[in-house]
């Protein structure tokens, strides 16, 4: 932790490593002048589990299941990026039907993740009714995930050379019915988030990240796009069936005509992406050709093939929070030589600093949550003010945030 000299008027508050806005550990140190944040410092690594190192003792198929456990919410994205890299090294041609099924899984995961986030964001500013509403929608999305994969979270659906479960004709009516529900739900959410006066007051102009800052700090995903950086791996790169589908690169100006890069824009961005995901699933179901879903159904044979492969490649997949990129190097052994994972939050850490500077303490939860960080959350905040030290717990910080909302509503 970097100690900076404290002037008479400012003091430091350490927040974390368990923090109110996030559900995983990260440590912030804020320099505060009254209610205003002057400077921010971040420390990570509290849950570094050495996943990449653990992969040195596993073969590529075993790594799929390890990759799935990097993140509970993006449990499809990490195996997807790893698979892409391995397929590129071993030059495995994936059956066309599997490419479309992969899109459906990826987009369904995006719906689950963005709706979950919308609930957390509402909770952070004290709208718990909206939390229950959004998580009810997410419940339907999770039920659909279970229907398609057999599980709600760790789905085990990805396989090198294809996908493990097909969508049969008798499954389609159920999927269509749920998609219709999501469309209606989308309209409700849109109304709740975008037309509400208080949500606007809390989020407009809060936590601004300019396009220039987003580019220089390498922001990815909705965080970058809400600031106007037009980068989306699904749009830019040909992988899975994304190259065959009609897909637009969405930024918040589609709806509002301008990009401000504030929390409100990040809300708009994610809501529009939910709608886009519904459309992409529909397109995939319409265009999906029939055929095999695996290039090589026999796992020992696949492993023998991978053992012969050598080379290096990167796989990129647009996860709900931004681009996931995996680098894999195979050297003709059973286990990969190197596997490097880059999750989106890795790049969205530094953008927190310009976002939080100049904001108030009560805005920390919503601004920090607005990047949808995949790290975590603390239960206790220690405030050090001169020689006096007192603790602000999660509830206290949350209360400050709610109070601000109530103040604005008066």
């Amino acid at each position, binding site marked *: *932790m*970097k100690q900076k000299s404290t002037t008479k008027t400012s003091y430091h508050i350490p927040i974390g490593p368990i923090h109110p806005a996030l559900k995983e550990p990260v440590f912030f140190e804020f320099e505060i002048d009254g209610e205003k944040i002057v400077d921010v410092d971040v*420390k*990570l*690594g509290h849950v*570094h589990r*050495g996943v*990449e*190192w653990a992969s040195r003792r596993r073969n590529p198929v075993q790594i799929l299941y390890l990759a799935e456990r990097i993140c509970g919410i993006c449990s499809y994205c990490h195996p997807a990026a790893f698979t892409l890299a391995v397929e*590129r090294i071993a030059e495995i041609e*994936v059956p*066309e039907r599997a*490419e479309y099924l992969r899109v459906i899984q990826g987009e369904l995961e995006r719906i689950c993740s963005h709706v979950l986030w919308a609930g957390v964001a509402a909770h952070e500013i004290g709208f718990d009714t909206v939390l229950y509403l959004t998580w009810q929608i997410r419940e339907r999305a999770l039920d659909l995930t279970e229907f398609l994969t057999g599980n709600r979270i760790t789905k085990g659906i990805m396989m090198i050379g294809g996908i493990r479960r097909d969508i049969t004709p008798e499954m389609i009516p159920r999927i269509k019915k749920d998609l219709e529900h999501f469309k209606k739900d989308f309209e409700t959410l849109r109304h709740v988030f975008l037309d509400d006066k208080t949500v606007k007051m809390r989020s407009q102009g809060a936590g601004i990240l300019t396009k220039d800052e987003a*580019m*220089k*700090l*390498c*922001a*990815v995903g909705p965080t970058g796009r809400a600031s106007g950086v*037009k*980068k*989306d*791996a699904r*749009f*830019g*790169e*040909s*992988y*899975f*069936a*994304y*190259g*065959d589908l009609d897909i637009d*690169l969405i930024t918040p100006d589609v709806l509002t005509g301008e990009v401000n890069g504030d929390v409100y824009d990040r809300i708009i961005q994610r809501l529009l992406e939910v709608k886009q995901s519904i459309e992409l699933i529909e397109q995939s179901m319409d*265009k999906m*050709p029939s055929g095999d879903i695996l290039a090589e159904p026999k796992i020992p044979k696949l492993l023998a093939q991978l053992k012969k492969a050598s080379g*290096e*490649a*990167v796989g*990129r997949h647009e996860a709900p929070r931004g*681009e996931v*990129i995996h*680098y894999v*190097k195979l050297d003709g052994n059973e286990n990969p*030589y*190197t596997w*490097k994972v*880059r999750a989106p939050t*890795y*790049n969205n*850490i*530094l953008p927190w600093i310009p976002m939080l500077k100049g904001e108030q303490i009560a805005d920390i939860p919503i601004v920090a949550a607005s990047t949808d960080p995949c790290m975590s959350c603390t239960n206790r905040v220690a405030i050090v003010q001169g020689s006096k030290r007192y603790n602000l717990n999660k509830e206290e910080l949350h209360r400050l945030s709610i109070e601000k909302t109530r103040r604005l509503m008066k």
Partner: protein
Amino acid sequence: MTDKKRLTPEEIVKFFKDDFKKDIIDVKIKTNTAGSKKNQAINIWMKVDKGVFKKVVKHLMKIQYPHLAVASGNDLGKIIELIYHFTLYYEDRLGEITLNISVDLPKSKPEIESLCDLIPGALVTEWEKMEFLGVKFKGIPDERRLFVPDDIPKGVYPWRRDETGPDKLYKNLHEVKK
């Protein structure tokens, strides 16, 4: 930035070769197809001499302000290889090009110039390489530890495969001083 003419992968390679000639040690252009329409995804792999690495990145910025996804690292025995994954033309539909610039550093003196003054977002990935592979970045604004816990002894680098790797640590956990 976007008004400039879009370069093909071959032109990008030429753009670097014209300026750096022999310092561009190796170049490969790899394409992969996906989906029914078999659209291509393009990866350029370029190995450059460590002496010109920063100049290469500066030169790259003349094409477009690149997106630095991350830097990967390999311990190859006597060499530590760093691979910087950049992407270009991400605003074009199916036009994104991944440019992987790699550089070999001798393990006896793994030093390279920091990119933080050109791309401030490189800080997190440089930190990681510093802690996990023991690479020294000249000019990095902040040298404290970010990812590894404070109780990991100095001189142990979790991604190395030799005696400076973590083997001793995890086999004799009871000996680690807290």
